């Protein structure tokens, strides 16, 4: 096979493979689109606030430590802010909810999952989280109790009580609630892979270096092979 053909096939397969797989969630419902920028300091910090003030009532994010909130440049809380958040927990502690698994089972019938990796662990990622948060509706068939019906949750019956108060919210609050859902989705996207921005930044240099290297190697190859008739 000629180099050109080979490269075309390789690029095409890469381009074809990318959009597949992540799109549809298990239920097969088309998800809403989340406005998420996992490199935005502002959005991630707003999301952190939603997380600590709302979600952490039930959920943990055990892989994110208070020290992380201090150290990740995308979050970059001050020492004072971190101390206020953590109370008497050690700085190396993860973001752990005060709700015990036993109490959760009693109240909701389920232990709320840890959210450190939720964006990576669900098809649709941030779109899925956003859709869940803004997907509390009245059951069209009237079977599932209000507050337990979620348009986007597989099977629709969700044990999580509508955390942002989406069901029955005032028209005027829609934008604010959507913003909260987006922000917390951005925060969760960030903590799912907290080195992603660094990775992209380094990756750019790596790619530039490799392009130059490959060009040089190609020219060298041509030079070495110039006398070979084939």
């Amino acid at each position, binding site marked *: 096979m000629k*180099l050109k053909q080979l490269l075309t096939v390789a690029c095409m397969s890469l381009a074809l493979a990318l959009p*597949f797989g*992540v799109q549809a969630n298990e239920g097969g419902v088309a998800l809403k689109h989340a406005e998420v920028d996992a490199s935005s300091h502002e959005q991630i910090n707003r999301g952190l606030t939603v997380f600590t003030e709302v979600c952490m009532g039930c959920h943990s994010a055990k892989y994110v430590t208070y020290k992380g909130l201090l150290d990740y440049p995308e979050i970059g809380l001050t020492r004072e802010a971190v101390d206020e958040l953590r109370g008497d927990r050690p700085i190396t502690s993860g973001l752990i909810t005060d709700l015990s698994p036993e109490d959760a089972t009693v109240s909701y019938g389920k232990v709320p999952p*840890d959210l450190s990796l939720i964006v990576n662990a669900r098809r649709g990622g941030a779109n899925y989280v956003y859709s869940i948060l803004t997907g509390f509706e009245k059951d069209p068939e009237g079977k599932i109790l209000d507050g337990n019906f979620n348009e986007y949750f597989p099977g629709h019956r969700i044990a999580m009580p509508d955390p942002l108060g989406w069901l029955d919210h005032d028209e005027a609050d829609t934008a604010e609630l959507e913003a909260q859902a987006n922000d917390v989705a951005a925060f969760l996207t960030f903590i799912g892979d907290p080195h992603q921005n660094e990775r992209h930044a380094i990756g750019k240099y790596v790619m530039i270096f490799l392009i130059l290297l490959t060009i040089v190697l190609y020219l060298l190859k041509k030079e070495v092979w110039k006398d070979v008739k084939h």
Partner: protein
Amino acid sequence: MLDTIMKSKLFGWIDERTGAEAIIKSQLTEYEVPKNLNYMWNFGSLALLVLVLQILTGIFLAMYYKPSAALTMGGYTVAFDSVERIMRDVNFGWLIRYMHAVGASAFFVVVYMHIGRGLYYGSYKGPRELLWIIGVVILLIMQGAAFFGYLLPWGQMSFWGATVITNLFGALPVIGGFLQEVLRGGFAVGDPTLNRFFSLHYLFPLLLAAIVGGHVHALHVVHSNNPTGLDVHAGKSTIPFHPYYTIKDAFGVGVFLLFYCYVVFFNPQMGGYFIEVDNYVPANNLQTPPHIAPVWYLTPWYTILRSFESKLLGVVAMGASLAILFLLPFLDRSKVRSARYRPVYRQMVYLFFVTVIILGYCGHSAPTPTLKLIGQITTAYYFAFFLLLPFVHKFEKTKPLPEEI
């Protein structure tokens, strides 16, 4: 550059004690290679590169990884936590882990291309039968290594994939139950399984390195095939490996790294193909995921397995689909090697490539009756391809071969 090194005093000292000069000459500077190899011949050196990358990144992962299924907070385990620690807290741990996980997929991409090249150009035929057979052994060990490695992060797919596959061994008559128990180290996949898989995951790539040595040695005895499939004789149709193919392989490495690094840095999960979405959920033996599928590189064989109603037949067919690769050199009786000059074989082998891709697609997707039927048809062709080969030469009119390459 090599010349200057070889003229140095130090090199002379080493040469007197090891015969290094003779080795370099016979293996590189005077090792004759056909001059008409196309870029499909680059995948061999790329496979070697990826093997080295896997071993290096693997050794660093093993410094932080902990093979234990003991539960930790939130339904996670020590093993899962240790992988997340690598991803979050270890300096550049994310890079090492993504390189390793993407590298596993890249390894199979490269090796499948390498095998496809061999099929198309008839590289499995005499005198390269043993070279091909060693290659099939490498494929099997690679699949084993990847399967063992996939259990280590102890996610849902790790756990259920290992459960499904070890179950298969249970379907074998007489020894099945015993084999399954030995693999699992108990009655179900659990902590003992994780420990023995980690041990084997360390062992297999090292075995692989040794066998790859044998593969390259066998190659250097019989020399490379080429796109025409003609026997070449040293002299006007060959050139020395160094510098011609060292530089061409180096260029290939550059192109490969462009793709590999793009995925590692910008798309390491590859939309759930390279690291499956469900593997970010910690293993839970009480909750079967809705759809269990192996990683993409094992899916063609998984489809063959699922194409039979009886589990035993499925297991046997899957084994046979791999084992038949060993027989390929003896099934194909045509005197002509390259598909370029074999119009019938050429169509057959193209169809075979398409078949394997379809088999892979079927194995990756949730089963539906249509997909099942497609899987069965393609499975039938998979075997038909090999079983027809002994007869093709009887009626195939090969095209005239050129005199020289």
